[in-house]
């Protein structure tokens, strides 16, 4: 049997390994995905005081610390049985919207765009942000940097620290904002809305106006009919910060809608002998293996899934784009994995619009930012939508608030099964008997993976900082046929 390993998967935030085994005739016999994980966080957190969790958990991940801080803070509200003040909730959501603007901007321009702007077959040396900016222009490059910088200023101003906020407390936040800060946030939000619009135009010009890419987006190779998960508000609109988790089937029908406290009734984890990863699935539907369809409990929690799981966007410009996506791609739900890049940009626009709304909210500068908890802590669950999927924090403490047990389901983990299936399908469709295995072909396999933006235990930053993910292909005799291993 031949074996192919993709290592590294370029431009991804984490480590991983794709191994593909070929049959005698050169077709794909099987594909495996390996993701090294940092382990033992639950143990590490035992015996710590619960109030430290929003600070500690955000160190797990170098990419989305703000999401962990927010899920941790919400878990503390629940743990101490305290409802935050209205202003506190709005300040949290404001910071979180600014974070979404930065994170989605980064993903699209650094990780997603190179495949389309430079082309899937472009040499790896060009298929990166430098190539993208060389092609789309320095002005847009400057806007990417500036949008990130300005929104990081918001995170620092509202959250008390750059990148790692420290303002979340049970019942509220530690710091109010003044009128001067509010006015600057409003200004940044306006610019971010414009930037969101421009980014959608880039997607239009580069992807939607190119028949080859549209065909690729709509192709069966990159289609997967799984359940969709996402947080929704009371009107079933997409919400990143608060609400209930809604799950909608590949047929567009609602399967369930649950409050954070109920997550264990809906989500179970599958263990496979060939990997340490656990694969979450929908309990009600059950585990039927790595297959898609209505009868398989595999689900996705991505920007596209969030749009599929909701009835719309809560802001006008994003809603218009939402409608355009579905009318262009043939109605709801959309099961084309590559359309996730489009969905991400619609979310970017929504985040910017929401930021603007909150910056103009009369309550936002109120000093009423905290309700002091008075009840004894016992157990709490907090859920937010992290950019890479639904993020659940669950803490159990003693009556002094010392952690006895901690369980986290992080964004990317939700998508492990779906991610594995997408890569497997792309490999089986693209590697055929007699087809030459080129770097461009292996990159197309990686393209099945990139929309998920998997963030795999990227808590370490040791130099030289390349991404160790390789794709290796082995033939039926076990000989290495091809290996893509940049950065190793």
């Amino acid at each position: 049997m031949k074996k192919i390993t993709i290592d590294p998967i370029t431009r991804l935030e984490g480590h991983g390994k794709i191994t593909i085994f070929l049959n005698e005739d050169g077709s794909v016999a099987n594909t495996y995905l390996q993701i090294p994980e940092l382990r033992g966080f639950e143990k590490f957190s035992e015996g710590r005081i619960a109030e430290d969790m929003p600070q500690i958990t955000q160190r797990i991940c170098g990419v989305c610390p703000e999401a962990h801080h927010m899920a941790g803070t919400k878990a503390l509200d629940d743990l101490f049985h305290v409802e935050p003040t209205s202003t506190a909730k709005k300040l949290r959501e404001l910071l979180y919207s600014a974070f979404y603007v930065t994170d989605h901007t980064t993903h699209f321009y650094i990780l997603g765009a190179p495949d389309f702007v430079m082309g899937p077959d472009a040499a790896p040396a060009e298929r990166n942000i430098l190539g993208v900016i060389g092609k789309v222009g320095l002005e847009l490059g400057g806007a990417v940097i500036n949008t990130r910088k300005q929104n990081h200023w918001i995170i620092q101003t509202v959250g008390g620290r750059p990148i790692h906020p420290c303002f979340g407390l049970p019942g509220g936040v530690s710091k109010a904002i003044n009128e001067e800060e509010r006015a600057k946030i409003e200004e940044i939000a306006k610019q971010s809305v414009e930037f969101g619009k421009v980014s959608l135009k880039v997607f239009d010009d580069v992807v939607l106006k190119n028949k080859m890419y549209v065909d690729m987006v709509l192709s069966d190779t990159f289609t997967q009919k799984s359940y969709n998960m996402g947080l929704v508000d009371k009107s079933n609109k997409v919400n990143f910060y608060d609400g209930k988790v809604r799950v909608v089937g590949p047929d567009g029908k609602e399967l369930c809608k649950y409050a954070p406290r109920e997550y264990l009734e809906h989500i179970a984890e599958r263990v496979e002998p060939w990997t340490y990863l656990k694969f979450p699935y929908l309990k009600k539907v059950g585990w039927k293996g790595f297959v898609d369809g209505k009868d398989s409990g595999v689900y996705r929690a991505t920007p596209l899934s969030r749009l599929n799981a909701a009835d719309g966007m809560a802001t006008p410009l994003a809603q218009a784009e939402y409608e355009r996506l579905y009318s262009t791609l043939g109605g709801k739900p959309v099961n084309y994995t590559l359309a996730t890049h489009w969905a991400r940009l619609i979310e970017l626009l929504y985040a910017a619009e929401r930021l603007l709304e909150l910056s103009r909210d009369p309550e936002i500068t109120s000093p009423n930012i905290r309700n002091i908890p008075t009840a004894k802590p016992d157990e709490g669950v907090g859920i937010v939508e992290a950019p890479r999927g639904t993020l659940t924090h669950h803490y159990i403490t003693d009556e002094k608030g010392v952690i006895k047990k901690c369980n986290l389901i992080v964004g990317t983990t939700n998508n492990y099964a779906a991610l594995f299936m997408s890569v497997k399908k792309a490999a089986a469709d693209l590697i055929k008997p007699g087809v030459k295995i080129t770097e461009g072909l292996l990159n197309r396999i990686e393209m099945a993976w990139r929309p998920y933006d998997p963030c795999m235990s990227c808590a370490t930053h040791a130099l030289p900082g390349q991404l160790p993910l390789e794709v290796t292909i082995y033939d039926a005799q076990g000989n290495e046929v091809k290996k893509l291993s940049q950065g190793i």
Partner: protein
Amino acid sequence: MKTLVLGVGNPIITDDGVGIQVAHEVANQLNDPRVTVAETSAAGLSLLDSIVGYDRVIIIDAIQTEKGEAGQIYRMSTADFSLTKHFSSPHQINLATALELGRMLGLAMPQRITVFAVEAKDITSFSEKCTPEVEQAIPEVVKMVLQELDA
């Protein structure tokens, strides 16, 4: 000359926290208004955000090389990273690409960047303490950073 001393790493992943520990120690021993000491867990584009506007930047980070011994210290310049320029990074883009991007966009990039890297032993376990081998190297790295600042 506006100088930044930047500890990079994750303070709860054993030896990955070495850069941040060194930065803390440098901050304790230093009293110079022209020098800013900071820490970050972010890399790639965020690293670029951190260093724009400084004339000189000293970065301290963990490293893992094929044959290195835990606690070994390397002094490097950005030229040492140019080989990996187009390669990927776990965190968006690597240092060399970030620098090239900054220059391409006409940002105020530092004229001099020095990197002190310490060979790490364990970067997969959760702990706020470095391994003894790496811990022992910290005073030496601090000394090297302070000397670099005097140079």
